[in-house]
């Protein structure tokens, strides 16, 4: 079976959608030479009209995409850095997201915002290492964080086909993941549907993005002591609450691991919603970045601010001990 990398899965999804639908086109910085190594080969195949390099004018090209979407196109924008989403938060949240309702249903804004390399990239420090997916979930913009190559493919395809704006974070920590996949197994993955990577009976660990792989490693490490279910929401908004409720109703324990700031983060939302619906046998735990985190430059500090396996291990021990 061929080995597929996460990056090439994204490339393939873009190529398939460009080939399938004339309305799809790409916008972004240095995408013609594929500086982020995602759009490789696409300009050659689809031409510079559909794979368009932009000047450094993020706010303008983000709303340019909104306009093109209003006129019937399906733009995909690649952002070089996760923190650029702060710069275009206005354009996505206050315009693209609001147009359908504000116009009384006269339009749709099917734009995909693709962020290859979100979170820490080791050494890019404060202004380039954010993971702002909770902000978009809070705003109610469809927010996707695939963990594996096949999911990256399937979710990106679904994002492009979705009639609403979708932000897709491809965590830097997942970009080098490879998996054996049959080309026939590369299919659209529905938005809003979770995936259980490893079934378990004692505790449900909800892990976001690249942290799915850490959760799987920890689950394996604990295999002879605790039976851990690793639950990957894949889409953070809309969240697959029913599947999570079903899982926690079985295990009775919940731990969430989320590489974003603690206060008002997705981990808090997951815990709140679960405790509204399921009685737990132990208080739930979350492992996140600290409140207000700014990633410091020095490698050891950068690591210290991101959720680690040791913290996840400790959280699992806590919920096992507490109930």
């Amino acid at each position, binding site marked *: 079976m061929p080995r597929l990398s996460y990056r090439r899965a994204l490339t393939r999804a873009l190529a398939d959608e460009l080939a399938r639908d004339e309305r799809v086109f790409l916008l972004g910085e240095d995408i013609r030479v594929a500086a982020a190594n995602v759009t490789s080969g696409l300009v050659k195949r689809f031409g510079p009209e559909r794979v368009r390099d932009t000047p450094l004018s993020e706010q303008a090209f983000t709303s340019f995409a909104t306009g093109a979407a209003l006129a019937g196109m399906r733009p995909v924008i690649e952002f070089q850095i996760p923190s650029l989403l702060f710069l275009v938060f206005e354009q996505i949240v206050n315009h693209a997201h609001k147009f359908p309702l504000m116009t009384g249903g006269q339009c749709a804004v099917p734009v995909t915002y693709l962020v290859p390399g979100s979170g820490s990239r080791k050494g890019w420090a404060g202004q380039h290492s954010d993971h702002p997916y909770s902000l978009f979930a809070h705003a109610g913009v469809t927010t996707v964080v695939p963990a594996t190559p096949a999911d990256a493919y399937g979710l990106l395809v679904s994002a492009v086909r979705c009639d609403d704006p979708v932000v897709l974070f491809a965590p830097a920590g997942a970009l080098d993941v490879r998996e054996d996949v049959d080309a026939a197994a590369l299919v659209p993955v529905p938005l809003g549907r979770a995936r259980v990577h490893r079934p378990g009976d004692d505790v449900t660990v909800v892990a976001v993005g690249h942290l799915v792989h850490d959760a799987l490693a920890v689950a394996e490490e604990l295999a002879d002591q605790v039976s851990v279910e690793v639950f990957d929401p894949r889409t953070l908004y809309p969240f697959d609450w029913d599947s999570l409720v079903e899982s926690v109703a079985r295990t009775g324990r919940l731990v969430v691991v989320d590489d974003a700031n603690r206060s008002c983060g997705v981990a808090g939302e997951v815990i709140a919603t679960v405790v509204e619906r399921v009685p737990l046998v132990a208080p739930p735990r979350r492992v996140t970045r600290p409140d207000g985190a700014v990633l410091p*430059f020095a490698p050891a500090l950068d690591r210290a601010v991101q959720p680690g396996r040791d913290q996840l291990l400790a959280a699992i021990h806590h919920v096992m001990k507490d109930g």
Partner: protein
Amino acid sequence: MTDADPVRLYRTVRLIRRFEERAIELVRSGHIVGGIHPYLGQEGIAAGVCAALRADDVVAGTHRGHGHVLAKGADPARMLAELCGRATGLNAGRGGSMHAADLGVGVLGANAIVGASGAIITGAVWARRRLGADAVGVSFFGDGAVNEGMLLEAFNLAALWRVPVLFVCENNGYATTMPVAAAVAGSIPGRAEAFGMTATVVDGQDPEEVHAVTAAAVARMRAGGGPELVEARTYRFDAHHTFEHAVRLDYRPPEEVARGRSRDPVAIQGARLPDARRVAVDAEVEATLTAAVEFALASPEPDPVDALAYLYASGLTARTGGG
């Protein structure tokens, strides 16, 4: 002080050149994590501009910011320690290459967000003058930044409120891989002129010419004139970022690179010194940098326990990420 001393200019360009070459070696050896955006080839601009400033004037820079920080007077040893993520670094190892700052010598920071520094420096200079100083400021940015809305908004504020900021555009022909001709409608001086600012084009490879043009602009600004723009034409001798040393991006024809490199600001300024003097400066710079590398590598790494030290000036402490 408008010190056109050819020896001083040479010392500065040579210092930046050798600093960057040493830094690239430290990227290769793994001591600098995350790589750097080398300033090689553009040294004459930082050197010429900063030689026309006083110690109490302020500057703000870019992702390609080492030259500005050094030319304004930061200690090369502490700068190098910062790049190596050490506790003794200018930013206590929290900032790294793209956020290096030394407020004590008037460097309000390199900045990782393209186009961001213009408005920050405008506010800083306005405030200093309100408080009675007659300081001026310099905002360094690249040709890519002239397409960012926030920089153009800063032009308007500075011009409207007559804040003496010198906007120095380092036009090296490319924003990453995007050629200026494919990105800039109109012209760079034309952007400034649209806001009523004087704009001057200068050969950025000649440190003395840069100095002379800056000194004249600063003199006009100190005498009560409003902001001005200088477009310094230059060429980046090396990669956009050191990641390009590993991944070849094909966008600059070799003949163009050879032509660009043939006008070397270090050679141009060096030729103005008697041989013996130049050799003596070179030895002095080498000694400074050898000591800087030793200092940086002997310095301790910051303690991860304090990863979020300095996050809040008010003394607030953040909740940790749990576990």
